[in-house]
């Protein structure tokens, strides 16, 4: 398999957090009861006309600037015509030939290193409504989402793996969150992704026939969909077959995909400029104003973390992907002499369980104190993680210094306090000692473990290991 590489392009739809919909005054909110945020415009009654919400343009420009795109001085809204019950006007207002943001790029970081993913363009468009399938009532239409503003970010085929796609999406989420234009939540559908994928022999610069998988709505599913589709295409090519250019539906339950329609059945959307809307003109002064509102972006912060706090690129990327985490980390780093230790705790124990929205569940001061305790070796790393987890769930702001004292969790750094325990651990683990002496270094872990157990996990593990080694060395063979 390794002789093939995947060539992936993404189309990412991001719902913008504007107060109102893109072409009418209806509220743009998630979770309202069905068909309450609707009006003649967004349900396409005869005679109703769209009027562009300029806030949508401003937000899209912010996203474009964050993605290093050029902002077109003139762009145009077009109609994409097709019939579907969630689309009451029978056309989606979108941009085709003349999008708002041109080009651009995003740098992504994976365990394999850095890659620059170029963007083709970013355009604005209106979302469609939603169909709700019920057992009894049949299929019902909810038009609350009809007319919710979207940007579509279209990449060049620059992505080579599922991990890069994942990192790209996380970066997009970070950028829209930093700029405040979207909550970027895939679980709510405010970020959705189409995957275009083809494969080719590694080293080739030709493009193979691609398939498209539409509307994938979680980071995890994107990864699975890519992995599955890559294998499927490679298997077909390996067995001498050909890839059909088609649209495929990814089934998140089975982790597999099936053909939806082939190229021959592709719809003709009959794009044409929407005569109800005038071209979007952007003045230089407006652009400057919006530029001034762009906050410091993740890449800048990342460079600072590497530079100032000696973090790895990969860790810095993880910390900057969520603006709440980045802000929290920076506030913590200012208060401790050991920011790297604070970063480790955040990455190991805060990020995995962090809710998509809401505050970080502890104060920078708490983590800074904890990092200091660790740095000064007043507690060991086990205790550190234990206390950190407690701080994350405690209802009151837990003070690590007080807690350590109260529960006697200070690290045992005193040789004489460990002496006896180590002696008996060595005596009780003759086989481990023999193994260690025979070059099986890992065997020493069993002995360390016993000492840790004997001190309720409070022994200084490095000191313990050092003392055990000294003592074993003195045991005659």
């Amino acid at each position, binding site marked *: 398999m390794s002789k093939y590489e995947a060539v992936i392009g993404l189309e990412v739809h991001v719902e913008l957090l504007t107060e109102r919909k893109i072409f009418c005054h209806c509220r743009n909110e998630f979770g309202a009861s069905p068909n309450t945020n609707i009006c*003649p415009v967004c*349900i*396409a*009654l*005869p*005679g*109703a*006309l*769209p*009027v*562009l919400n300029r806030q949508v343009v401003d937000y899209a420009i912010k996203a474009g600037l964050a993605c290093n795109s050029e902002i077109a001085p003139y762009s145009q809204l077009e*109609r994409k*015509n097709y*019939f579907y*019950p969630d689309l*009451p*006007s*029978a*056309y989606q207002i979108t941009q085709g030939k003349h999008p708002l943001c041109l080009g651009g790029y995003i740098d992504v970081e994976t365990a394999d290193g850095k890659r620059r993913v170029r963007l083709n363009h970013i355009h604005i468009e209106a979302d469609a409504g939603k169909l709700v399938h019920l057992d009894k009532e049949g299929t019902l*239409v909810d038009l609350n989402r009809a007319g919710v503003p979207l940007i579509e970010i279209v990449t060049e085929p620059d992505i080579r793996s599922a991990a890069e796609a994942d990192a790209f999406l996380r970066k997009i989420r970070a950028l829209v969150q930093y700029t405040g234009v979207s909550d970027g939540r895939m679980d709510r559908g405010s970020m959705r992704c189409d995957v275009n994928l083809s494969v080719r022999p590694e080293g080739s610069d030709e493009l193979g026939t691609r398939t498209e998988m539409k509307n994938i709505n979680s980071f995890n599913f994107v990864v699975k969909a890519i992995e599955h589709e890559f294998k499927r295409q490679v298997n077909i090519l390996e067995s001498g077959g050909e890839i059909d250019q088609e649209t495929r539906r990814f089934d998140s339950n089975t982790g597999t995909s099936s053909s939806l329609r082939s190229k021959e059945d592709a719809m*003709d*959307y*009959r*794009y*044409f400029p*929407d*005569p*109800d*809307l*005038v071209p979007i003109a952007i003045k230089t002064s407006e652009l400057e104003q919006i530029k001034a509102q762009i906050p410091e972006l993740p890449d800048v912060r990342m460079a600072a973390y590497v530079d100032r706090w000696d973090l790895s690129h990969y860790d810095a990327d993880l910390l900057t992907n969520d603006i709440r985490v980045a802000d929290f980390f920076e506030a913590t780093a200012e208060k401790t002499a050991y920011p790297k230790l604070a970063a480790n705790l955040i990455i190991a124990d805060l990020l995995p369980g962090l809710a998509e929205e809401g505050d970080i569940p502890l104060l920078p001061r708490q983590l800074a104190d904890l990092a200091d305790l660790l740095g000064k070796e007043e507690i060991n790393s086990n205790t550190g993680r234990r206390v950190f987890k407690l701080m994350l769930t405690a209802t009151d702001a837990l003070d690590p210094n007080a807690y350590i004292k109260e529960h006697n969790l200070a690290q045992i750094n005193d040789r004489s306090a460990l002496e006896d325990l180590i002696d008996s651990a060595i005596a009780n683990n003759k086989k481990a000692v023999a193994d260690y002496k025979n070059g099986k270094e890992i065997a020493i872990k069993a002995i360390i473990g016993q000492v840790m157990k004997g001190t309720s996990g409070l022994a200084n593990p490095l000191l313990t290991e050092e003392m055990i080694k000294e003592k074993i060395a003195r045991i005659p063979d």
Partner: protein
Amino acid sequence: MDFNKMDIEQLASGLRAREFTAVELTRHYLAETASKEPELNAFISVTSEAALTAAESCDKALAGGEELPVLAGIPFALKDNISTKGILTSSGSKMLSNYIPPYDATVRAKLKEQRAVLLGKTNMDEFAMGSTTESSFYGPTKNPLDTTRTPGGSSGGSAAAVAAGEVPFALGSDTGGSVCQPAAYCGIVGMRPSYSLVSRYGVAAMTSSMDQVGPLTKTVRDNALVLQAIAGHDPQDSVSQNKSLPDFSSGLGRGVKGLRFGLPLDHLDTKVRPEIKEAILSAAAGLESQGAEIVPVHTGNLDVALPAYYLLTSAEVSSNLGRFDGIHYGYRSKEYENLEDIYFNSRSEGMGKETKRRIMLGTFALSSEFYEEFYVKAQKVRTYICHELTMALDRIDLILAPVTADIAPKLGTKKSPVERYLESFFVVLAPLAGLPALSLPSGHLADGMPIGLQLIGSAFSEPLLYQAGESVMALNSKESN
């Protein structure tokens, strides 16, 4: 009191002088409507009760000494593609024969503010596509001047209602002559305003880039009054112009001395029947005798206008009418087993032949394969026509042209679609270029059927159109004296 002989200003001052009440006025027009409708079929809905209620409240306000706008208490009718909250707005189609809008079109709201009294909704060609009202789901309207003839279309109901004295004024909509042509066939005054002067909000879209609402009245003065009431910037229509409004009556009484009129002579020779050419030339001579200058107007090839118009209008129609899908509102076929059936059967059963023809033409013109060859080329032609007319209007004040090639045809006349399309030559020019056109009666045939004359001016030159239009009308009364 003969209300029929009074213009809107006279009716308005009569109301204020308590010579009659708004209720009496409304009752008069309702009675006219009741007696004429069985024959004419100008209305799809007559809203008698709501009209009387509105008239009563007007009378109360007047009796209380309130200052009301000039159209207060004046009955009127709206074409049935103009949304009226709570009142059927069918666009002349089976597809919308059960559609009652929950909102008012801007022009309707403005006339409500004026306290004008809505008498009902008028008949029209289905979705404003046609020139005879014969494509209406509600049957054709008859021309009140000769009930064997069509009143024209698509705003045929509005034109017939005004010509028959069923209402003092009505609104129509004009995309490619749908106000000007029926005005000509019925011998009344019809204005197609400059594109973007009147809000399109709430008017069922046919060709978004050309649709304009315009007044149909008996006199030029009335027409200017009504346009004053409905024109103006509307934030709900993105293309709506945002300039301060002129006084549309400001030119009235000034005559035509010193104005330059351009005659498209080459088209007069080839495109209209001789009596119509005579009528136009005689009007030109009449204006000249009042101090106007008449010059031949030469432009590039205007014959390309018609195919461009039908391509563009079909293209936009095919998109604009997609919303009539049987899902959300309007007619839904009873025969369906799946989604595709709903679309297919509802649209097949709910739409008429001409509508389907244009949807198919437009779908073809926008298809990715033919987009460049048809839609884009037609847009270029439109730009060319626009340029040619604008250039011509740089050298003259107004173009003076016929409205139609012939007088109102007999109902039921069989013609091919292409033959019918070709008749629109003179009325698609102004819409393609976004220009205003005023249709005026100017003479008639021996049998009494009126001939229409139109003035086309630069964008937003409506006051000048009315100024000259008044002089054209004055020629008529001289002639009949």
